[in-house]
């Protein structure tokens, strides 16, 4: 799911940048044929994207239950409850902290790795593929691996104690902020290869001529990096920054698995999506409240996207 998100803005942004080449000849087909081609995709879009969006808004004003049954409108009650819900405050705070740590790490480290694998050295394909492996693994698998490594007696605590960095094991999987930090390390580790590919594509578009010209003018490696490489990948960097922010707000599996579905002691390390999931099932579930939470989540994820749009339109003007 997340993996396919990379190229979203690229796909949308390209029409403005590239001269129009395609677009088949006019007056070739009848009016119905194009819609036959589009029908399945549009039907899916309607049933599984557009209708659920509207239905989410509708349900947010009801007390709908996961097991069906009587449903009635409750006005703004769900939203009023959100404002008084400590778990929502916790979840939002966790997301912000998570985002603030992930953002610098995931915009810079993948660029450095992309620069490392950009040169076509013998065996470079092997390294690229290997660096991409964490991306293709399921978040469940990755979270289980890290749960074991971050265990009180696990690899990380064991090594750190062996090397006398710490005297007592750190409770990576039970203390609230350590859970957040563990989730960050897991996310960064899993995301490196993903963002590396985006940078790699961007680096490929930076003209080699520019580098050569700069080198002929006597620019050193550092100067070439700041004067040629960085401006060349600026667009990719912005895109990645936004993707990282949005992804931070959508975190679920990592924390769910690492805390056995609890979100740590007292559920303090819960994320927004974990809250939505908790209210989605069983007798104690509440689809109305979960829908209100979904709207809140959507509203927050739109912010980084709007920022990107603004920056983009300014730099194009």
């Amino acid at each position: 799911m997340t993996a396919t998100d990379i190229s979203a803005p690229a796909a949308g942004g390209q029409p403005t940048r590239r001269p129009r080449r395609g677009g088949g000849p006019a007056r070739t087909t009848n009016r119905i044929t194009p819609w036959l081609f589009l029908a399945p995709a549009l039907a899916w879009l309607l049933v599984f994207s557009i209708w659920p969006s509207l239905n989410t808004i509708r349900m947010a004003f009801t007390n709908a239950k996961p097991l069906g049954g009587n449903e009635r409108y409750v006005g703004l009650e769900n939203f009023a409850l959100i404002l008084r819900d400590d778990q929502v405050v916790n979840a939002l705070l966790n997301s912000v902290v998570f985002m603030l740590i992930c953002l610098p790490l995931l915009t810079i480290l993948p660029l450095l790795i992309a620069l490392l694998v950009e040169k076509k050295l013998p065996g470079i394909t092997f390294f690229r593929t290997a660096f991409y492996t964490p991306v293709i693994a399921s978040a469940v698998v990755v979270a289980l691996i890290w749960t074991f490594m971050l265990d009180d007696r696990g690899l990380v605590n064991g090594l750190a104690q062996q090397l006398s960095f710490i005297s007592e094991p750190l409770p990576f999987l039970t203390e609230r902020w350590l859970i957040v930090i563990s989730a960050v390390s897991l996310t960064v580790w899993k995301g490196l290869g993903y963002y590396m590919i985006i940078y790699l594509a961007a680096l490929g578009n930076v003209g080699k001529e520019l580098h050569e010209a700069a080198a002929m003018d006597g620019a050193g490696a550092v100067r070439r990096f700041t004067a040629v490489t960085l401006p060349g990948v600026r667009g990719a960097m912005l895109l990645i920054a936004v993707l990282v922010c949005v992804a931070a707000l959508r975190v679920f599996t990592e924390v769910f698995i690492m805390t056995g579905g609890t979100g740590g002691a007292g559920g303090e390390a819960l994320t927004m999506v974990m809250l939505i999931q908790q209210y989605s099932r069983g007798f104690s579930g509440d689809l109305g409240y979960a829908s209100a939470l979904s709207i809140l989540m959507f509203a927050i994820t739109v912010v980084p996207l709007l920022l990107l749009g603004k920056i983009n339109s300014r730099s194009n003007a």
Partner: protein
Amino acid sequence: MSAVTDQRGAVPVAASAAAPPPPRRRRARGFGSMSLGEKIGRYALLVFVLLICVGPFLWQLSTSLKSRSEDIYTRIPQLWPSEPTISNYTRVMEAIPVWSFIGNSLFVAVLAVAGNVIFSTLAGFALARLRFRGAKVALGLFLATLILPGEATIIANFVTIRTFGLADSLLGVALPGMIAALNVLLMYNAFRQLPAEVDEAAVIDGATAFQRFWSIAMPSVRGTVAVIAIFSFIGAWDDFLWPLIVLTSPDNFTLTIGLQYLSGTFSNDQRMIAAGSMIAFVPIAIVFAVLQRHFFKGVEEGGVKG
């Protein structure tokens, strides 16, 4: 490093009648060959990153092969099992119906690949190569849904699936994922980049829209189709949240849900959890290793570029 750029660099030098060698040598040092020191440095860094990226998988693999008599919590990590055994894997097979979970995951993943490849190529072709009223609106619809995080509509999607009578069914898990707006746009992009002349001739010869799609356009966008197929498979195979919401009976569990069940039930048996996670990871790693050439090629061709 192409011949074209070399010539371009050489022209002004020749024109100003200066001696060409010095700039060329400087350029060569910067770009052509790498000094031995730099090569060693680069490989050292590559190996370092490799250890970070692959190390945890190897550690898990090693744990899954350790026998019960071996301590898996030693302070100094033992990567090589002292008495390698596959007993942890057989115990996983006894604890959960692994094969049926794999079958369930495969079912969902195959539907996701088929749906995404067929529907998004059809739609992308129509948007890019057929001219008709309403094309812009349709394209706008696909673009607009991109900003919608799937998690925000997951509750309403569950209600829809329940209305269809598909709650707690594999079809219910597979159905919403059978098309992604993003893939339609990726195909739209790929089809748009084919030059218009390609199918003008076909139009003159009286080819139908479907013939143009199938025999002319499709063969030229194989790279993008491969990327979509690979991503759809991985996405469906790895998905956790949606099947977790839809499925309730263990018979229908996909592998990720089964794995979570395993880790919850045998939380103190780390060797078994390790074996279970390897069972989920190895198939996808093999699929990717086999197809990685198409993947990286496809990504370079279109997709991410821009």
